[in-house]
């Protein structure tokens, strides 16, 4: 019953979020601020994780291909497919969920307990829309770029690890990443990313927006935001994969 209660309250918050904004110019400015805070500030961690993820993938792939019947360029092909289809969109989204989701939930939660949201409401501003809409739009806009960056850096990381350790030649790896390439795989990954961006921002914002109490409750809201958006990402990943690839 509690799930139905929260889902209903989540939908009613979304309805409030997508109402007509008060002043578009202010929202546009907020959108740009959020693009920087949610997206550009996460580029560093996404880059580091992607390079190492690609490197580990390549090394594992090389050690697991022990049949002489399997050509070595398969290492490059498998690394690319893994990065594009799953590691970049899903794993990086889960990492962003921890970084961005906790930030959103604690920021909005703190605003709630320090009456800043009440101050917006008293002024006649739709606080849900003002605080949450720019975050959702910014994440849905910038996350696909982060994921594309992750795909590229993952493949580069794999190349660096594979060639420097002598597991595969540069030519073989590059031949592998060019083999059997379907643009649809990238569209599939980006579609997933946009859905995940919406989930991360809206679920975390929901938990922050309904915080009651003080510092302890803000911490709890932050944790809940990350936990529930992670679960929602995993669940929607299954559904989207079934819908888009099956």
């Amino acid at each position, binding site marked *: 019953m509690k799930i139905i209660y929260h889902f209903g309250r989540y939908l009613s918050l979304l309805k409030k979020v997508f109402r007509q904004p008060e002043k578009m110019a202010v929202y546009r400015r907020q959108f740009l601020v959020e693009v920087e805070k949610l997206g550009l500030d996460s580029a560093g961690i996404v880059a580091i994780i992607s390079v190492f993820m690609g490197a580990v993938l390549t090394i594992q792939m090389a050690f697991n291909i022990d049949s002489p019947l399997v050509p070595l360029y398969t290492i490059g092909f498998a690394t690319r497919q893994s990065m594009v289809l799953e590691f970049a969109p899903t794993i990086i989204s889960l990492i962003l969920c921890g970084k961005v989701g906790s930030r959103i939930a604690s920021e909005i939660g703190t*605003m709630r307990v320090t009456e*800043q949201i*009440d101050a917006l409401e008293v002024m*006649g501003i739709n606080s849900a829309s003002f605080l949450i809409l720019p975050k959702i739009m910014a994440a849905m806009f910038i996350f696909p770029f982060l994921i594309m960056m992750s795909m590229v850096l993952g493949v580069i990381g794999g190349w660096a690890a594979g060639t420097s350790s002598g597991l595969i030649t540069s030519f073989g790896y590059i031949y592998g990443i060019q083999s059997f390439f379907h643009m649809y795989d990238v569209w599939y990954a980006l579609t997933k990313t946009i859905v995940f961006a919406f989930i991360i921002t809206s679920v975390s914002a929901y938990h922050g927006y309904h915080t009651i109490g003080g510092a302890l409750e803000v911490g709890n809201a932050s944790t809940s935001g990350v936990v529930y958006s992670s679960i929602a990402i995993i669940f929607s990943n299954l559904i989207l994969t079934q819908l888009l690839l099956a």
Partner: protein
Amino acid sequence: MIEGLNISKRFGDRMVLENVSVRFEQGKTNLIIGQSGMGKTVLLKCLVGLFEFEEGKVLYDERPFSTMSFYDKKSIRQEIGMLFQGGALFDSLNAEENVMFPLTMFTKMTLAEKLERANICLSRVNLENVNKLFPSELSGGMKKRVAIARAIALNPKYLFCDEPNSGLDPQTANLIDELIKEITLEYNMTTVVVTHDMNSVLEIGQKIYFIYKGKIWWEGNRDNILDTDNHELKAFVFNSELTRRLRPQ
């Protein structure tokens, strides 16, 4: 003038306000006083529309605020200034930007005009050279004064203050009281202050409602509060050594 008529509010099974009727007059500082947990802040939040209530209505100069839709309420809300207990300044904005915020949202002023208005409001609350400071860099009294400056930025007709003196030293508390009194007269506003500070009651209480267990227990003003024979009010008023010395013999 603001009227609250027969307001009843409950949280779950607990009745917090029971059939409360109040009337706050223009150009006066109207006080809601009482012990903690008696429903003062809940009443204030019902009046400004932050809480929905089960029964009753709220009128702003005879306009039925409580029955209006969110969008219809907007025009009245822009006539309301509110000072929250902790100031409720936006952490990501500096003092100047906080004061300019309502101007940015609801006016078509240029940046220069907004800056000019923000400076007028900040100097009105005796704050200078704090424009670029963020809330975390301001003292408690300064935060309250910036919050007052923000509240008066749009020339409001109604000002609500929730415990404006809480956490302040007596001198700063007096300063805030004086400021509220002066601004009320200057802008001819209807001001409603929630407080349990007896000093404020005696300084600015032109009309006072004493709330006890969610009901209006007594109403009067600062001139007759010390002569009251209401048992609960007497216990509230004369609970400190200072006020006991003021007690009429």
